[in-house]
């Protein structure tokens, strides 16, 4: 422990890695490049497919902040997603605001919902937490079904604005660009959390809450932070949904498809790192897009289920885990 031995020590600390600022910059550059490429392709279908994939990137990344980093399985991802979608419907109708402010409101609503969930489930762990989130999803769906202002069980039509922001040629192109930016921001946020003190604390509480407390980690507060951030981001993922399809109704917005995808994508990619949900979301949602076009929409969900079961059995640490096996 003496000073004399210090200089002789090998330089240990984790391998050099990109700083937070550099990573945000890289995300921004990647986002711009992706927007340029999509603008270059310029087909309505490409915009739609890309938006579809990107909304899942946001959803899976958001889910992973609570599920992967903190180890709390949220079965109610669909509820947060739908909360975002319905915020857009309600705010758009009440205040006539455009998409971007609606996304901001969705983040607030989702964050509040996440915080509420966290407070309500402070003492719950493991399966109990998962079941509570599932219940929350049903309660929220019931509220929306009975809320006539946003269309109740009939659903609501949302008309895309006539004027298209510069420099986009179609509204779909604009929507797609928004989705790219949201996805890039989600990834940057997730990575920042992962590599920060917060991420370290979440990882500690994921492994052992009592030991984390004994090491000075305020587990309850960190859990609330994680549920809030994760909830806000999942709602943001859902905010553009009404404009993507021009129509939203409770059964599909609260559909199990979102819940299962939000879980399957990070687990398939690997939950330990920001790259996992990204890989999982891109793979699984592209697969579903392709299956929807070529086979049927029921079959693509079956694929998700089978892939999920096979992966959790055969590769419990996801695709990233397969690559790291040799390393660690």
């Amino acid at each position, binding site marked *: 422990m003496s000073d004399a031995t210090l200089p002789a020590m090998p330089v240990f600390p984790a391998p050099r890695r990109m700083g937070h600022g550099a990573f945000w910059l890289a995300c921004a550059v990647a986002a711009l490049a992706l927007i340029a490429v999509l603008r270059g392709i310029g087909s309505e279908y490409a915009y739609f497919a890309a938006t579809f994939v990107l909304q899942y990137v946001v959803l899976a990344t958001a889910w992973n902040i609570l*599920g992967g980093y903190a*180890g709390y*399985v949220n*079965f109610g991802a669909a509820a947060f997603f739908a909360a975002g979608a319905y915020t857009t419907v309600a705010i758009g109708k009440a205040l006539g605001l455009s998409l971007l402010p609606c996304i901001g409101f969705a983040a607030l609503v989702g964050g509040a919902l996440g915080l509420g969930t966290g407070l*309500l*489930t*402070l*003492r*719950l762990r*493991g*399966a*109990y937490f*998962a*079941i*509570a989130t*599932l*219940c*929350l999803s*049903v*309660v929220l*769906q*019931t*509220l929306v*079904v*009975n809320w006539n202002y946003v269309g109740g*069980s009939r659903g609501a039509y949302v008309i895309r604005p006539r004027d298209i922001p510069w420099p986009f040629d179609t509204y779909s192109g604009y929507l797609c660009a928004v989705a790219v930016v949201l996805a890039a921001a989600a990834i940057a946020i997730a990575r920042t959390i992962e590599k920060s003190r917060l991420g370290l604390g979440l990882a500690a509480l994921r492994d052992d809450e009592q030991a984390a407390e004994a090491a000075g980690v305020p587990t309850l507060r960190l859990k609330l932070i994680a549920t809030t951030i994760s909830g806000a981001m999942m709602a943001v993922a859902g905010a553009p949904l009404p404009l993507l399809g021009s129509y939203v109704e409770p059964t599909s917005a609260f559909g*199990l498809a979102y819940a*299962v995808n939000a*879980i*399957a994508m990070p*687990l398939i990619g690997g*939950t330990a790192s920001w790259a996992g949900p990204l890989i999982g979301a891109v793979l699984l949602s592209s697969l579903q897009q392709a299956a929807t076009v070529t086979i049927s929409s*029921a*079959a693509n*969900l*079956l694929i*998700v*289920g*089978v892939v*999920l*079961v096979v992966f*959790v*059995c055969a590769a*419990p640490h996801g695709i990233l885990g397969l690559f790291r096996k040799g390393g660690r």
Partner: protein
Amino acid sequence: MDPDLALLLNGIVSGLLLGGLYAAAAAGLSISFGMLDVVNIAHPAFMVLGAMLVALFWGATGIDPLVLSILLTPAFWALGAAIYVAYHHFFERRGDEAIQGLAFFFGVMFIIEIGLVLAIGPEQHFADASYANTTWRLGEIDLPLRMLVPALVAFLAIGGLALFLRHSFTGRAIAAVAQDREALRLLAIDPVRIKRLAFGISIAMAALAGGALVVVQPVDAGSGHIFIGRVFAIVIMGGLSSLWGCVLAALAFGVVENVTASFYGPSWSPAVAFGALLLVLAVRPQGFFGRVA
């Protein structure tokens, strides 16, 4: 009689009958989740699988749906045992139960559901028992046999299960596995074998519940969703490993849901029921009817 009172009484009675169905659905889960600590969120999906098979066989043979569901139980037992073997091999043994195990059953649920849609179609299926259109009346109170018979069969099955758990050697071993795995080892009983057997029983109960379900209401592939929250709510409120707690909770749940539906419309009933569970989880996670740990 005051019409409101009659409505309330009818709401309570049909709630109790509905509770019978819920008890059937939850009893199996009380074994797997409550006693074995296996978080089988696919349990309602197995129930719906049972219901759909009963409906198919009923269409082909015309045999009473509840009898058909009893005939299905051995096959479901085997299915459950097989799934437990896989679950144990991949998760329990590795100690990866938490997230991966949950996701496993989530995936299984999904596969069953979508598999049903692809194989039979998304539309509703039903099976009419011969007594389905008979209603006994006690004054102002209706006792539709469509609800009463499944409830009675459910209670009989749960009663049988309770006797088995209390009085047979294997049954007591199942109860013991919930308490202390090591004690079983000392008695030279293989806990994995006991759990496999018990998980099989829980899935067999799901088949029976499926038969009851399809007599009560038409069933489609997604009918299980609404039951996920319900059955877990019931098992948790019932104090996890107590079958009687589970029955009491199921009856209470049925009444609350039904009375809400009678007075405020059916679209509100899930919110009330699930809100109750959220409160239970937040305030008293060990349930209302269970032993104090």
